[in-house]
């Protein structure tokens, strides 16, 4: 609870950032993101990671809207990302659509598919819905791998490089700006969504769906809307992957991806945009970090090369278990605790 701050209008009271500390933190983050590509301009590895993190954040925010905020568990993330990636890829590669147009089309196409697979959510809850969305994952990947004439089947689909005013965009440095501009837009839109009655209806459905319906929330409409908005963003993440990599393969969208994204939002914090940021960053950087550690240790332990995949998988599982036990509210809660500590520092309460 923040105390000692007084506002004289509802407008100010309802602002997102209400204290100087909050504003300063935001500015620092912003400056860091602006400076990052220039600092690491020569180091492509870091820029690649930054792009991966940005795309993961968009996907995680999308999933969090559905799972964390609306309480509709989804295991179809990988499938929905595949819809976004393949729609964008096919429209650009086969129909010659510009990359931005195919990206927008991919978002809407994924939203539509999301709504379609969201229809069972009116009747199904919890684990049963999870299984229903898992079927979305399986069906979509089956179509992708078997409809070779359009998707390229199990072969990779090659997408032409995206360009803007003659500049090739999918170099790590250039794509950074595309990714993070979209991260910014998605974040602003999501934060605003949850300040208005749409977002409150989503949370109401999660917390007490019967009470929500008695308060006038049309459960069917708002659940489908949650699926639509969520899938829209997941589709965006998929389309960005397609244009960034210039190549779309079905292996990138297996059920592992669905689980990975669920892990991101659980570790980050369900029902929180900040949590989506933290979780996506953490889960993208963790394997990279382990790989680097493994390489560094290669001299001392030569056997580590063959063990590394197992260590990565093991750490992945261990991290999830540790979070569930020690901080079920995720990194977002840890971040809040840190802020609270420094707000009161040097006093303990």
């Amino acid at each position, binding site marked *: 609870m923040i105390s000692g701050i007084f506002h004289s209008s509802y407008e100010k009271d309802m602002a997102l950032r209400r204290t100087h500390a909050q504003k300063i933190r935001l500015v620092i983050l912003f400056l860091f993101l602006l400076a990052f590509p220039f600092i690491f301009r020569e180091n492509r590895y870091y820029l690649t990671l930054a792009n991966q993190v940005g795309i993961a954040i968009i996907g995680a925010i999308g999933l969090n809207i559905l799972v964390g905020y609306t309480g509709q568990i989804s295991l179809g993330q990988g499938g929905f990302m595949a819809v976004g990636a393949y729609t964008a890829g096919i429209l650009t590669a086969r129909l010659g659509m510009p990359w931005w147009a195919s990206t927008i089309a991919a978002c809407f196409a994924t939203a539509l598919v999301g709504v379609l697979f969201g229809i069972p959510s009116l009747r199904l809850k919890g684990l049963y819905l999870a299984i229903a969305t898992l079927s979305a994952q399986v069906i979509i990947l089956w179509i992708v791998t078997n409809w070779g004439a359009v998707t390229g089947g199990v072969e990779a689909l090659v997408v032409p490089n995206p360009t803007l005013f003659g500049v090739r965009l999918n170099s790590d440095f250039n794509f950074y700006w595309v990714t993070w501009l979209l991260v910014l837009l998605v974040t602003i839109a999501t934060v605003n969504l949850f300040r208005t009655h*749409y977002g*409150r209806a989503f949370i109401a459905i999660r917390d007490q769906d*019967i009470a929500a319906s008695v*308060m006038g*929330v049309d459960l069917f409409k708002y659940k489908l809307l949650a699926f639509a908005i969520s899938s829209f963003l997941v589709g965006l993440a998929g389309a960005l992957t397609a244009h960034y990599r210039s190549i779309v393969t079905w292996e990138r969208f297996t059920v592992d991806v669905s689980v990975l994204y669920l892990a991101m939002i659980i570790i980050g914090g369900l029902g929180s945009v900040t949590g989506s940021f933290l979780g996506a960053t953490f889960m993208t950087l963790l394997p990279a970090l382990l790989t680097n550690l493994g390489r560094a240790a290669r001299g001392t332990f030569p056997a580590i090369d063959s063990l590394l995949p197992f260590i990565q998988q093991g750490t992945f599982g261990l991290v999830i278990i540790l979070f569930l036990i020690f901080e079920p509210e995720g990194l977002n809660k840890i971040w809040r605790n840190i802020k609270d500590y420094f707000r009161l520092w040097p006093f303990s309460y």
Partner: protein
Amino acid sequence: MLRGFTNTLNSSQLQAGETQLRVENIQLNFGGVAALMDINLAVRQSEILAIIGPNGAGKTSLLNCISGLYRPQRGRILFYNDKEHEVTRLKPHQIARLGIARSFQNIELFRHMSVLDNLLAGAHIHMRSNLFSSLIYWGTAQREHIRFRRFVEDIIDLLEIESIRNNTVGSLSYGLQKRVEMGRALAMQPSILLLDEPMAGMNSEEKEDMARFILDINEEHGVTIVLIEHDMGVVMDISDRIVVLNFGQKIGEGTPDEVRNNPLVVKAYLGEEKSPFKFGQSNNNNHGKE
């Protein structure tokens, strides 16, 4: 401090005393068990109608039929606002949009939201801004949001919950949660407010507060109130009319005095010819049936 409400809490367009809700021959079965048998009743604009009866009499089932959570097998429920609406086959959210609000016996608040957000969620049906303007939170969406914030502050004033407006409701005491839940129903600007045991589990001071709020809402804002309550003292004091249910049947209806002297009602509560409504002594053990 007295000040006018920016939005009236009452969306009804009827004159006091006109029939607002009519329940006709409702029959509700759960499998072979009849929860409600041939219930008829009418609710009039601006009255406080209490529904009483022993446990399992069908009081909550009746409320659930009115708000659309249960579908009765027979009979119909009519609601009058600008015109006659048959609500029997409508979905809960459609019924809410007509102006029927309710609270629940076991608190069903949105636990992870703040008190403010719960109240704003209650005003959901009045919010008009479209998805796009909500996403950019500019123009209409922002203005609407601030207007409703002001409106919700009036309810906060009315229910005296200023100090907890930013608290998460999950962390509040039981009595305060009940109050917030009533506030959330009020934010709908209802024509009829259905309250399912608003005072259950409260101490006498909290009950007094709650009774005062209910009377304020009814007298100052003319909101019709249908309430289920077990505390006979409160029921007899604040209600204009009382309907008595027992084993799914209506066994009595009338003013508190009429009900108090109705031999069927007395029998249902006590099993003998003796008035159950003596105040100042515990009547908890009177609910047992012989």
